[in-house]
């Protein structure tokens, strides 16, 4: 994924709200990246753009080699369905379906074959939910629900998993578990994870931390044991963002 000078404005009444003011960012396959920053700094907006849920107002944005701004609505939906996984803060799941049916439903939308039931079972087991596959969503705890959401997101092995504050509604312990599981999945299957968070304990799991302030990348740092990555000089960000 590659962003150059990505800008996003929203019309709010007569006013223009600048959510992103020129973001430059490269994310390579297999990264485990946390987007942090104060409220309103543009984390959700950026995740939505990378997730092809929205198009940038200006700038260049390539996701899996596809120029998001140039894709039709239909092409973006197809890209999301086939190549991207999503975990939202809430409302991730269809409440009337069981955990397994939620996973199966999306596998079916993706056109998976008849093995989708087994596949759903397998991925739920991978997230420690083997015994809960036939529970309806409203019979599961918040932590379990988010694990189902992660299972659903990774079931078809997407290239990138995007998670917007996945732990916001979870207590510390559940947040820890979820991060461990996500990190595990990335380590085993090489999927890219990009998630936003306010929670320092969640940030601690990240391999790379990108800090957004006021719609710009303010810091980009690597932590623990991962190979260093080129951090864009602040001047470049300033110049493009201005």
């Amino acid at each position: 994924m590659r962003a150059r000078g990505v800008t996003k404005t929203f019309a709010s009444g007569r006013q223009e709200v600048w959510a992103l003011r020129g973001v430059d960012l490269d994310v390579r396959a297999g990264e485990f990246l946390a987007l942090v920053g104060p409220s309103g700094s543009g984390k959700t907006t950026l995740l939505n753009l990378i997730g092809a849920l929205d198009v940038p107002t200006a700038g260049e944005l390539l996701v899996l080699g596809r120029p998001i701004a140039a894709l039709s609505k239909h092409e973006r939906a197809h890209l999301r369905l086939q190549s991207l996984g999503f975990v939202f803060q809430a409302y991730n799941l269809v409440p009337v379906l069981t955990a397994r049916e939620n996973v199966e439903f999306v596998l079916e939308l993706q056109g998976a074959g008849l093995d989708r039931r087994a596949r759903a079972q397998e991925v739920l087991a991978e997230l420690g939910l083997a015994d809960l596959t036939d529970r309806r969503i409203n019979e599961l705890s918040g932590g379990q629900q988010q694990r189902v959401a992660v299972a659903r997101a990774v079931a078809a092995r997407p290239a990138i998993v995007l998670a917007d504050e996945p732990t916001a509604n979870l207590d510390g312990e559940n947040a820890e578990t979820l991060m461990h599981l996500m990190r595990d999945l990335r380590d085993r299957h090489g999927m890219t994870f990009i998630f936003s968070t306010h929670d320092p304990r969640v940030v601690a799991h990240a391999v790379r931390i990108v800090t957004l302030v006021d719609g710009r990348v303010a810091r980009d740092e690597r932590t623990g044991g991962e190979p260093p990555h080129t951090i864009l000089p602040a001047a470049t960000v300033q110049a493009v963002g201005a």
Partner: protein
Amino acid sequence: MTVLTTWRIAWRNLWRNPRRTTLALIAIGLSVTLVLIYDGILRWETDYLVDTITGPMLGHVQAHAPEWRRTRAMDKTLGGVSRTVAAIGRDPEVAGVDTRVYAPALAALGEEGFAVVVVGVDMAEATGPSRLLPGSKVPLGGRRALMGRLLAEQMGVRQGAEIAIVGQGVDGSLANDLFTVAALIDTSVDLVNRQAIVLPIAEARELFAMGDEAHELVIYARDPARAGPLAARLSGSPELAGVEVLDWKTAAPGMNDLVDLVSVMWVFVLLLVFVAAAAGVANTALMSTFERTHEFGMLLALGTAPARIVGMILVESLALGVTGALLGTALGGAVVAWAYHAGVDWAKLTGGGPSSLSAFGVTFTMIIRPRLASIDIVRVVLAVMATAILASTWPALRAARLQPARALRE
């Protein structure tokens, strides 16, 4: 999984709010019940009207000499009647043929004379079910006549009295004879009750010096609905060449209008279902899709095709509509079946309303025996399904057009 899942998801979603769904089912079910009851009554009424109108007097197809209907002249008769009747009777769609003579005459008891119509009928035909004298067992022949009760009251005649009938034969001769009133009759035809003296055809012919002749052949079809084509076919047959052949709708347009009026009411009934079903479905679809904005936003965000969202919502409404329609059909069908066997007396139902009703000189009894044809049920269920789809189209399109990012933010 696809179709099954869509229905299963729809069904589970409906029961997320059991109260709302139950209310919608009651609204749809009761409206379908009412429609089927009303429908059953209409169908009975239409069949019954046609029977009552055609059975005793008109028949389904009539044949006369060309000028007879206009002039009612005694001598405008059909000849060679027995051969014609036999030929018509061979048509597989003909259930029976009555041979009629209508002769104006004077009837006298002592000094005073009254204008009457002597009606000669084929007794074997006229005593059949829903004919002029259904089930009558009064033995006639030997100068015994039946007299309309109102006429008898007017003349002061009792059963067993002897009356003189004076008229003119077809050949202009004087027709004149004495008859015993064997019974007073109450038919569903006013004219007969007020003016008629009924004789077996043979005695009527003898009285009026007629040979193998008649003024009218009254033909009964096996299927009354096919009276028109039958009339057309018969009028082309060699035995009826040069004869005026009419189906009952042409012969009595006023009565046909009455039947048509009843059928037109169906449109209003259909409207009733539309309104009730639409209200039930539209309310449910609107509320439940508004409540699930996040859910649809999420599904769209994952890349679900908007068409699939539309499909899910339409299927949900269809499931609601069809379930309501089936419940309504079960209830309505049961009520109609019960009423058909028991027979509902209009008079008792309305607490003193009329037990019978007269229109166009025909008396209709008001014992209601509603009945349904499968088309009635199919029609109602289809109407509910169409309404369900129409009523949920807007909520479905609204949900499908959601912007996923915004729907999730809200």
